[in-house]
């Protein structure tokens, strides 16, 4: 049995479209099946073929919260992969490279294993393209990852392509194994079998989200392809029909959200997913959903903006847009997903909020979360009970008022087909019955109050959902949002281990804000850091408007997520100032 403190980062780099990602994915699944927790990260080029791709998987004997810091094992298929990633390899780390492709300068303090991957694949298997399977064989044997897991995986993966293909890949794997056996080991890295015995799933954030949507009762999805959200549509196109649902690939994002609103009006739970540019196009319809009080879920898997920006890179840059986009007083709910596991439950909650309050819910994920894979416990569908919208009673339908002013500001909502429930879903300001009342000043005030009147109830839920961790009475506080939860948590643990008093708050509903939780949290620490993967500090800015507090921003804006160390370093820097009682300086950091 392996040591539960095992914690290794593997990174595979090479030419895009040449199997780098599939190598990484197979390694990931194999490690998960071998009993390790895993956490992946991938960057890939915007080009379809060519360009540089890399895939990283961290495997450990304990729950993982981030993709880690330094690389333990780099598998470099070419010179470019080596050049790009060598500086991330920790001292004493391992570099396995294709000796047919290049020769690295052996001067970095790493341990090098040159394996002639291309010639082994060409000569011993007869198929050059199997070089990545040869590499897997090498890694498996060299680092003692159980071979059976890989061979099973190869059979599953290539089984559909016929026995021949399976055999060729098994041969390639064995060629790699044999090569490892002839190579003298000069490092200490050894995995064996991981400690986890219970079954877990290996899911990406997008897959987890899509599964959660199905569990929440979503049966219609309309969307337009855009990186990094597309795989949600492709996943649901395959799975929704099995449950009687359907996916439409619309002609654009305006149509996508229009279709969602139409479907919701007609009584179905519906969703769309997009990224920044598509979300921009949806803005006008978001307002329609708000004023017509239609439940809808809109996912924004954020990527780097503005405009088409950096399509395959990550950022938390759309928060302002999620909260403020649209003209007029336009209340919507904004949530952010925090982890692969949370993507499942988070999306269920998003549907619940949409249904319960009859309002569009914007859910922010991002490229790093949507595309990373992690081991997660098999979802427990009873954890978030599914909520349905309020339907009119027989009495409501006698003289039906769709937008009736009620004590809790939520009106019973009919659907076509219901006798007596006819009304017009209105984009114009309207009365309780749905009649346009575009000139009635007092009615506009009342209607606006109705739409915002739901917020205090949402705030109660927002407070419930906001999570705290670390020191309960910290000297240094951290407020994070979205996909940074794990990495912040890991940094907090690092800091606590070093004796710093650090605690964090991580709201899941960002708008309306969990004011009570925020207030209580903010009153404690001597300094508060807000780490965000964006340039200006969008959440920090929103919070400054509610709290006259000098938050310290930590912003990363290079299209990559934080590493734990980056956050830890900031904590340490701030802690030193706080200890020296120079909070004024700390606040300006």
């Amino acid at each position, binding site marked *: 049995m392996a040591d539960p403190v095992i914690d290794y980062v593997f990174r595979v780099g090479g030419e895009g479209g040449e199997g780098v990602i599939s190598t990484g994915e197979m390694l990931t699944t194999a490690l998960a099946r071998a009993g390790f927790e895993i956490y992946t990260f991938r960057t890939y080029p915007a080009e379809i073929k060519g360009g540089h791709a890399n895939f990283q998987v961290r495997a450990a004997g304990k729950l993982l919260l981030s993709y880690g810091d330094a690389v333990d094992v780099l598998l470099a298929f070419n010179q470019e992969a080596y050049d790009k990633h060598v500086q991330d390899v920790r001292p004493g780390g391992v570099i396995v490279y294709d000796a047919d492709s290049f020769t690295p300068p052996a001067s970095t303090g790493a341990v090098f294993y040159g394996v002639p991957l291309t010639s082994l694949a060409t000569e011993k298997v007869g198929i050059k393209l199997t070089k990545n399977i040869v590499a897997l064989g090498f890694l498996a044997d060299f680092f003692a990852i159980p071979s059976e897991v890989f061979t099973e995986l190869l059979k599953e993966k290539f089984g559909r392509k016929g026995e021949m293909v399976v055999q060729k890949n098994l041969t390639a794997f064995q060629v790699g194994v044999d090569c490892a056996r002839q190579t003298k080991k000069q490092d200490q890295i050894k995995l064996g079998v991981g400690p986890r015995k219970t079954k877990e799933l290996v899911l990406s954030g997008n897959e987890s989200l899509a599964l959660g949507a199905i569990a929440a009762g979503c049966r*219609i999805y309309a969307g337009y392809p855009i990186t990094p959200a597309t795989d949600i549509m492709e996943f649901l196109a395959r799975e929704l029909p099995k449950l009687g649902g359907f996916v439409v690939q619309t002609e654009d994002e305006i149509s996508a959200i229009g279709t969602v609103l139409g479907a919701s009006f007609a009584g179905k739970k519906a969703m769309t997913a997009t990224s920044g540019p598509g979300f921009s196009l949806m803005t006008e319809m978001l307002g329609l959903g708000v004023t017509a009080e239609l439940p809808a879920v809109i996912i924004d898997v954020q990527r780097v903006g503005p405009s088409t920006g950096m399509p395959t890179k990550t950022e938390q840059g759309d928060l302002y847009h999620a909260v403020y986009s649209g003209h007029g007083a336009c209340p919507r709910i904004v949530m952010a997903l925090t982890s692969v596991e949370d993507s499942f439950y988070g999306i269920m909650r998003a549907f619940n909020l949409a249904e319960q309050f009859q309002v569009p819910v914007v859910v922010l994920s991002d490229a790093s979360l949507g595309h990373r894979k992690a081991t997660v416990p098999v979802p427990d569908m009873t954890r978030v009970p599914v909520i349905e919208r309020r339907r009119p009673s027989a009495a409501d339908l006698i003289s039906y008022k769709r937008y009736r002013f009620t004590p809790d500001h939520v009106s019973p909502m009919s659907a076509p087909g219901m006798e007596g429930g006819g009304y017009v879903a209105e984009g114009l300001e309207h009365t309780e019955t749905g009649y346009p009342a575009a000139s009635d000043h007092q009615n506009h005030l009342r209607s606006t109050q109705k739409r915002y009147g739901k917020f205090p109830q949402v705030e109660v839920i927002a407070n419930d959902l906001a999570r705290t961790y670390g020191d309960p009475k910290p000297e240094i506080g951290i407020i994070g949002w979205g996909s940074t939860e794990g990495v912040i948590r890991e940094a907090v643990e690092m800091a606590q281990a070093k004796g710093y008093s650090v605690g964090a708050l991580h709201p899941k509903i960002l708008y309306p804000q969990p004011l009570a939780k925020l207030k209580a949290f903010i009153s404690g620490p001597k300094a508060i850091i807000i780490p965000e993967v964006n340039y200006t500090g969008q959440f920090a800015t929103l919070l400054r408007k509610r709290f006259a507090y000098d938050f310290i921003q930590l912003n990363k804006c290079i299209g990559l997520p934080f590493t734990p160390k980056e956050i830890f370093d900031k904590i340490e820097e701030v802690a030193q100032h706080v200890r020296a009682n120079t909070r004024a300086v700390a606040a300006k950091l």
Partner: protein
Amino acid sequence: MSGPTPELLPQSYKTDEHPIWCPGCGDFGVLDAVYKSLAGLQVQPKDLVVVSGIGCSGRTPGFVKSYGFHSLHGRVLPVALGVKLANPSLCVIGVGGDGDGFAIGGGHIPHAARRNPDMVYVIMDNSTYGLTKGQYSPTSPRGYQAGSTPYGNIEQPLNPLAMLIAYGATFVAQGYSGKPRELADVVTKAIEHKGFAFVNVISPCITFNNTYKVIPQKLKETPQDHDVTNRAKAFELALDTAHVQLGIFYQVSQPTFEEGAAEVIQKAQASGPPRLEEIFSEFS
């Protein structure tokens, strides 16, 4: 679709909301024709959804006793598609203006046509932007003088009928709001048509583009012996811009979007509807 007694009359579909249109507006004729055909087909108000965009025509859902959706400028078709997809048993009628449909919403029409959902799309074509006070529209003639074209329109008008035939709509027809009885017949056939039925209605704007005098001189019934399945002949009629041809230009039968969706669902459920747990197992 015949409903229970008491029988529905055209006025049964009237709401208490009085149309805000200018007296003499062509849209009254369209509304009357719609009432008539709904009564003729005994469409149950609870199963009817009228979806509109923005413009004078956009107010139509408020005037029809049914479910309605007054959406955004140009967005009739996406919303209507969502409604139909959610509940294929509904009778869905989309209404819009020529600006609504062909300018801002122009990108949706080809896709609605090729998807072929079972719905009706009525354009109230007054060749002007009525609600915003008479600017030129995509169907305004060259030389049309208005607020935004004080020296006359320099653009060529679109040909909605030719466009829809080209897009592959399975039902393409034209009516005139001044002939509500004939129009009602066309709308009835459009509702009965299984698939995407497009009806362009010449509906004069009495205030900004009063064509009541010129249109009647150009009216012409589509030939008695016109073969509606002949696409080339349908184009010929559509390209006859010297006249306003009234009637069905083109009608063919194609699978509808909902039928396609139902087939996909059937295919996906071939081995029985899976439980979510079974989908989970794909990821272990």
